[in-house]
């Protein structure tokens, strides 16, 4: 469990903002991911949480090398994925697969389930020789809890949860080591969501997979993750074990985020104090100077506008947090802002 299977160093992804049609002029950059470092250990699940626009999906795309990073490196077992291309990249991609959020748009409606799940074998024929592909697909269908007899059906004949299982089967086809799940259950109803989460856990135990699990739902992330990274405006603000983040958060943003999660228990209604954040997430085109959270933070001082707080372990905390004033705080304690 200690070996790092994936190491991300100072990853940056900026998208240019242009004006003009013929004479395009770059007038700024969307700083979607702005200096992210993290490790994924073999067999673990790393959760990545954050609100919309914090860069978590861009992170997934860069990890897969679907987008080239502006700077930084993504090392898979010592090889920098972001520098690879052609055959070398293709070989490496076998090991890292993606499960997407929307099971309705991520499956081609004109392809049968058999073709959808079997398509990776076309690109990587060494995994399954031609004659055995249908059997392989049937095995995969069985593995994700679908009826192998349905191999000739089309995506529209399946429900949302079943489609997400098809997406998972497709990601498993090449027997990858790492699966990046980008909001895999957020489009599903609660009862179906639980089925898919159980499936992901079962597959991890059976196949020894490592997951990068990206989601905005904090309870879902906690349920599945060993370690959790909290993102805000392109940066990781706090990272630690599931326990450290949920029981002893030290970054004000993590604290606010956790306190805002509605608890499905009416008896706690008046006991928990929600930290009210004012306003919205600032634009990633011109993020605030210094600490990016300072515009919504109740602890903000002058130093927060001047110095970017580093993601490091500070006194009074046992895990890295990017806040000048990182400290533990009881989530239940009242602190109206």
């Amino acid at each position, binding site marked *: 469990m200690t070996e790092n299977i994936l190491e991300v160093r100072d990853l940056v992804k900026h998208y240019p903002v242009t004006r003009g049609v013929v004479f395009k002029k770059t007038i700024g950059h969307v700083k979607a991911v702005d200096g992210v470092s993290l490790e994924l250990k073999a067999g673990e699940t790393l959760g990545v949480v954050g*609100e*919309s626009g914090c860069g978590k999906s861009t992170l997934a795309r860069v990890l897969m090398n679907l987008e080239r990073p502006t700077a930084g490196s993504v090392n898979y077992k010592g090889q920098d994925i972001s520098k690879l291309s052609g055959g070398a990249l293709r070989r490496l991609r076998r090991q890292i697969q993606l499960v997407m959020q929307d099971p309705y748009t991520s499956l081609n409606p004109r392809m049968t389930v058999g073709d959808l799940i079997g398509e990776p074998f076309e690109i990587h024929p060494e995994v399954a020789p031609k004659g055995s592909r249908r059997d392989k697909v049937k095995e995969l269908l069985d593995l994700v809890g679908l009826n192998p007899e349905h191999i000739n059906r089309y995506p529209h004949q399946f*429900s949302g*949860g*079943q489609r997400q299982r098809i997406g998972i089967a497709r990601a498993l086809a090449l027997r990858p080591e790492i699966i990046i799940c980008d909001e895999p259950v957020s489009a599903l*109803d*609660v*009862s*179906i*969501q*639980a*089925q898919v*989460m*159980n499936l992901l*856990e079962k597959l991890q135990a059976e196949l020894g997979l490592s997951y990068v699990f990206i989601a*905005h739902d*904090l*309870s*879902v992330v*906690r*349920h599945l993750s060993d370690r959790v990274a909290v993102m805000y405006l392109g940066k990781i603000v706090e990272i630690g074990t*599931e326990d450290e983040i*949920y029981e002893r958060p030290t970054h004000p943003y993590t604290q*606010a*985020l956790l306190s*805002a*999660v*509605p*608890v*499905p*228990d*009416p*008896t*706690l*209604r008046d006991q928990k104090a*929600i930290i*009210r*954040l*004012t*306003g*919205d*997430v600032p634009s990633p085109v011109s993020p605030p100077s210094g600490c990016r959270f300072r515009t919504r933070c109740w602890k903000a001082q002058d130093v927060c506008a001047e110095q970017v707080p580093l993601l490091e372990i500070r006194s009074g905390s046992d895990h890295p947090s990017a806040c000048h004033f990182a400290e533990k705080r009881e989530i239940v304690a009242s602190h109206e802002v």
Partner: protein
Amino acid sequence: MSDILVSEQSKPGAAGSGRPSGRLLEVEDLRVEFRTRDGVAKVINGVTYHVDAGETLAVLGESGSGKSVTAQTIMGILDTPPGFVTGGQVRFHGKDMLTMSAEERRRIRGEGIAMIFQDALSALNPVFTVGFQIAEQFRIRRGLSRSDAKKRAIEMLDQVKIPNAKGRFSNYPHQFSGGMRQRAMIAMSLALDPEVLIADEPTTALDVTVQAQIMDLLAELQRERQMGMILITHDLGVVADVADRIAVMYAGRIVEEANVYDLYAKPAHPYTMGLIDSIPRMDERGQQLRTIKGLPPNLMNIPPGCPFNPRCPMAQPVCREKLPPLLQIGTDRASACHFAEDLVNRD
């Protein structure tokens, strides 16, 4: 029809509200079907619920359970065709809205009952300013002049805590963030001071920190105005925070109705139990989530007997034959399960 809930004994409405007490809005045995090329989908199969002044009724259900269609029928914005109301009543202050004239209904919309939608960006008109869309109501419905209407609209924007309301008046919807748009829509729906507000998944598209802001705002405005609120949602967390009573829907029926504390403490329907068990809890990492097996039924082909029986862990032969009516159990709660009494009396 045997499967109609006889609505509970009327209780006094919220006191001191300055509004007429008693049943504000009642839906009784509502039936709606969608006639499509592929067949008839029975979307609502006898829904009965009510909301009083000052209380929040949460209608909880998964996609396809009919919770939004019920709301659309109440508002009279059901797409016809394919949707047809085939039975039942929607009474506002005792008067059936389904049989009144279009003109009478129009008068109720906005002033009597207003609605906010999940997706504020598509609910607002992109080619008019946000301010214009709010002020329009004051001009048309209240006959105010342009400048008076503008003043009132700015007041509304202010009430929903949009910073710099005056400057924001002439912004277009795309210039607002997601949370701001939802606030603008709340301002619009409350402009004519409705007695009932229907909120259809008002925070589903928003992030948690913004969701908390919007739910606070709604609760505050409801308290101030003593509105009745119907909150339609699939989120058991949000419901636990704000609801007084909960109606759980499944396959176009209400399967359980109870006050919020009873429902979470001791659900009286296996579907509600399943829903509560399948939420991932912050405090139970690594354990298998209990799930509801299978899928919701196809509404064109609802199974005979109890519609939940193919997925129910407790199903008995009787469940496949007889449709359980929504019956009172104890005081102030009802369940549509043959074994509801056993469920409530278990330890």
